[in-house]
């Protein structure tokens, strides 16, 4: 990073030139609209003109029965969606990574490549593919259950209020398990051989080695995948929209903040779009994600010990 001294005296225009395009586009299309949205949430429409409303929109969202029921429902569904990912996706990802990283495993590159395939597919494809596969009209899911003698368990999971959200959560897990797998795999590979060999000298092998030696060393990566999962889930929209439509049926049982924002902001069927309430919901999503990121940065990351090899 050496900077030659004579240049110091003059204004170094090239720095500005290098930074300008990125900073301009990023500020104009991302940062300003983000703050614009936060600002819009404080206004409301009154006879076509914009009126300052303070925190009224938030009050409506939390307490007005027309809004609050939908909002709390979406927030709870979103939380459940996140819990499913944390309980299913990340442990499976870690387990797969642990197996993949075992030494002298043959075909590990092929397994890695294939297990990552669902992650690159678009939500539209995944949503419809599972909608067809789980459809009672098409016999794929019942046929499969029949093979293992469990046909009686089949119900149209996506069509039942009590199962639909969990089913969609599991579909999303199926799609994204590749990401924790890859990040943990990378972390496991970076553990130096000496550490593992020292453990083996002390007679710690197999499962015990994973729990006692490797897991503590990959905790920072587990922290990263948790926050990535959190941000991704509280910002999710596409899968639910592709599989269940904007009404997030049946009977709003799969409604999450993303679909609620879309319906509110853009309008759907008889309901007209409301940019102000839309901004309010987007602002709530912003605060939730910001809170999650802050918890991660200031609580989780500072407590985790990082080992420098």
């Amino acid at each position, binding site marked *: *990073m050496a900077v030659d001294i004579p240049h110091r005296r003059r204004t170094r225009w090239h720095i500005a030139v290098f930074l300008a395009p990125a900073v301009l586009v990023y500020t104009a299309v991302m940062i300003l609209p983000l703050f614009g949205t936060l600002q819009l949430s404080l206004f409301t429409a009154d006879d076509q003109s914009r009126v300052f409303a303070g925190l009224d929109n938030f009050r409506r969202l939390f307490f007005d029965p027309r809004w609050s029921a939908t909002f709390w429902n979406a927030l709870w569904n979103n939380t459940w969606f996140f819990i499913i990912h944390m309980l299913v996706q990340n442990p499976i990802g870690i387990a797969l990574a642990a197996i993949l990283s075992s030494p002298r495993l043959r075909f590990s590159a092929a397994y890695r490549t294939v297990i990552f*395939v669902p992650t690159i597919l678009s939500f539209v494809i995944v949503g419809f593919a599972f909608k067809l596969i789980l459809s009672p009209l098409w016999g794929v899911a019942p046929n499969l259950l029949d093979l293992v003698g469990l046909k009686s368990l089949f119900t149209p999971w996506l069509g039942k209020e009590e199962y639909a959200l969990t089913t969609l959560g599991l579909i999303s897990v199926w799609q994204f398990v590749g990401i924790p797998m890859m990040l943990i795999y990378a972390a496991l590979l970076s553990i130096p051989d000496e550490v593992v060999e020292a453990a083996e000298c002390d007679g710690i092998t197999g499962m015990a080695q994973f729990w006692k030696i490797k897991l503590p060393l990959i905790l920072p990566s587990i922290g990263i995948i948790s926050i990535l999962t959190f941000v991704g889930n509280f910002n999710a929209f596409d899968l639910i929209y592709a599989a269940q439509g904007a009404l997030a049926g049946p009977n709003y049982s799969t409604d999450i903040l993303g679909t609620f924002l879309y319906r509110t902001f853009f309008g759907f069927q008889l309901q007209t779009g409301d940019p102000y309430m839309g901004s309010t919901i987007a602002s709530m999503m912003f605060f939730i994600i910001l809170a999650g990121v802050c918890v991660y940065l200031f609580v989780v990351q500072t407590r985790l010990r990082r080992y420098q090899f």
Partner: protein
Amino acid sequence: MSRATISLPRTVAAHAVLLTYTVIALFPVVVIIINSFKSRNAIFRTPLTPPTAETFDLIGYATVLNQGDFLLYFQNSFIVTVASLFFVLLFGAMAAFALAEYRFRGNTLMGLYLALGIMIPIRLGTVAILQLMVASGLVNTLTALILVYTAQGLPLAIFILSEFMKQVSDDLKNAGRIDGFSEYRIFFRLVLPLVRPAMATVAVFTMIPIWNDLWFPLILAPSEATKTITLGAQLFIGQYVTNWNAVLAALSLAILPVLVLYLIFSRQLIRGITSGAVK
């Protein structure tokens, strides 16, 4: 590298678990693709068997190619993805170079400012982005999508690229300066070629979410002329929901290009992830 011996049962168990998961990961994709080549009756009677000579039928593909403007949608997606990718890589590399190479007042602050977008999704600004695009007359243009995706891709690109740019040898750059190269020439001639592998990683990371995005095409560019393939497939499938041949063919057409590209670039992508570019 000496290791404790690995027992045979353990190896078998490892392969059993991985194979099971491989089947789970591939099964839905395979079912969709094999059934897209079958006649309507065979789709329902024997959904789990590959097409045979009797059940082979391309009626679904014929419907899709006749009805939808898939070629146009494909072209739109292609233009948007390539253009956004170009700007993300060019602007991102320039900014990353400035942050990694020069010490100036506000360097750290600028780095943090640009990294903000890694964690906060651009989608939350949608309401104001739509207003901005309406005000500037960019609604229903591909330009709107390209601008949004460029802004979306920049933070991660700058973050990853500046890590790599810090590793480029100072001696090389100083040798260039002694030879009278301008800073621009040092960047384009000396540094850019050296970080090409990192650029490829960033390109893959940037490309996948852009190609697959449904939200912004739906809101900013839903007109017939500007639909992307993801939005086009979504609407097409919605309309033909009872025509199973057509739906399965449309899904397969949407899967195959991405799958082929992935298999070509998978080595690059996986190397990028495991080399610690995103730690």
